[in-house]
């Protein structure tokens, strides 16, 4: 538990260093805990580690997006292949040979007489 010790400064000394406005609290607190050089190094190291972790997290996240993008690309390629196959099949079904051999075509007859109307 951190213990703070209140202490007072004279108004003059305060006014000499900084200008305060009226009725402002001029009391300040100072921690009794002093950080040594080792603690500083540890803190800096911790900060570096935290930043490193943040970087790694983001990099991993990006990589996971890359996997998703790759999967989507594969799906697009697969669907595109399927579309091509269907288009080819559609073209085959509508080919002249298929049309000629269809039941509809076989049941057609040659017109006996042809009349022309002017447009």
């Amino acid at each position, binding site marked *: 538990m951190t213990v703070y010790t209140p202490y007072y400064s004279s108004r003059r000394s305060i006014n000499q260093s900084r200008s305060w406005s009226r009725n402002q609290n001029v009391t300040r607190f100072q921690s009794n805990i002093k950080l040594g050089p080792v603690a500083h190094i540890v803190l800096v190291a911790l900060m570096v580690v935290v930043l490193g972790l943040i970087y790694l997290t983001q990099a991993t996240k990006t*990589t996971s997006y890359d996997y998703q993008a*790759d999967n989507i690309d594969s799906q697009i390629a697969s669907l595109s292949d399927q579309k091509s*196959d269907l*288009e080819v099949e559609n*073209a085959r079904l509508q*080919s002249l040979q298929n049309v000629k051999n269809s039941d509809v075509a076989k049941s057609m007859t040659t017109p006996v007489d042809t009349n022309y109307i002017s447009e």
Partner: protein
Amino acid sequence: MSDKITSARAKFLLVIVVAMAIIFVVRLFYLQIIQYGYYKDLADQTQIKQRVIPAQRGLIYAMDGDNPVVLVSNQTVYTVFADPPMVTNKAKVIKTIQAAAGDQARDDLAGLLDKTDTRYQILATKVSRTAAEQIKKADLAGIGFQANSQRVYPEGALAGQILGFVDFNGDGQYGVEGGLNSELSGSDGLLKSVTDVNDVPLTLGNQNIDKPAVDGKNIVLSVDRNIQAEAQQALAEELDKYHLTDGSVIVMNPQNGQIMAMANLPTYDPSQYNLVTDPALFNNDVISDPYEPGSVIKTLTMATALDTGKVEPNDTYNNTDYITVDDATIQNFTKGHTGNITIQEAMNYSLNTGFVTVAERLGNGKTVDQQARNTMYDYFYNHFGFGKLTGIELAGESAGFINKPNSTAGGPVTYATMAFGQAMDATMLQVATAFSAGINGGRYYKPTVVAGTMDDNNNYTPSKAAKPEAQVISQGASDVLRQMVITVRQANGGKGIDIPGYTVGGKTGTAQVPDPSGGYYGDRTIGSYIGFGGGDTPRYVIMVRAAAPTDVGISAGTSAASHVFTDISNWLLNYLKIAPKN
């Protein structure tokens, strides 16, 4: 004493540590600074992968009336391969691949899988996507797939020689595939990036390249699949009837130069081009096989004479069935119409003497002099385009050949025989294009097989309306020529074979075949027929050629060609919904 020892040890340790630190620093400096490039390249080689994104080859469409339909498409097929040492269950692999791939599987699968000293054995080729997925589902160890794109032809062998094919390297050969290869190919894309162990591209690093592929253009041909099928069928039936095997036909629109059909026999199936043993089959003879066209050229000699005002259809000459030019005597194929006859009659009976006379009248009227030859050359070469490429978008076009009037070979005899289509080489495309200009009002259109383009959303954009390249004869001369050609057909039985109510014009041609050792064969001919239909504004021009070998009679080719014309013409009058007169 003890302090001294401690101090000495500490110093020793310090020296060791400092020395080691120096060694590390020097080594790291060497590796990271001096050898930077080498190790960076090494790392890039393993981490950065480069992948070519293949461009999709453009599709080829034909017309079906007013609507484009697919004639050539792309399909992804797979090559199934094995890494024999990695295959754990050979029996399952063989059973699965044989069941899924069927005929596409190699015969000796067991033998291929036994080759464990190799790392790559092809087990099946051209496997469909569904079959490949079936094999993938079986999760076979040591089996891999390689995707390839191949051309597919929903209409089978239809228009094979117009289309050409795509070879093993992906390059278009012959026909549209060869002629428009750069437009159809597109350009490949490139994906370069850092990848993980599974080859998944990662967005790390600053050397990534993602250049998308640009797919090839989808081309819509002016060829109508129904007219093409009819032309192929009529040609096959008539050649068969006359026991002939070699023939060609072209159908074009004389009002814009668009090719509506082009067919040859014998032909080939572009989906099985690798089975063709005679490479000559790849040629489209309509554009690549120039020949002496014979009497069909009389129409163009007449066009020249009409346009220069030197001859009228009712002008007369004395026909004796023979005519002498320099030291050569030229005779008629059809004899007996001797006496004073008109040029129209000479055309009706296809009399060579009449057209040598026409050639003479282009000059001084007594012989085929320099002026006559210059005029003929000007019209044949500059106006009608003989001896020059037409520029059609098909690979393998031939320019043909005509002798210059001031050359040694371009003397009076040569030009006298050119007047009826001998002593010159022309392709059917050149003759049909020139004839179209002769009967359409004199406008020469560059022949084309391209009607437009199709975008990825199946929106068809027609090409800009064709403009004539030149007015090669006057409207008046063209009108007279058109009527003359109608008269020729009517005088030769056209009234009995054409659908009543339509005016159809046409002219035969029977050319001798040059003997490589000199002169002409006496028993071989090439029959031709050229004509048009559709009334005062002709809607189609058809030219047919049929080669008659030695044992079928010298008129067989001409008869077959004439019948092919009639079959297609009568069919076209209905198909194009042309209303009869009266």
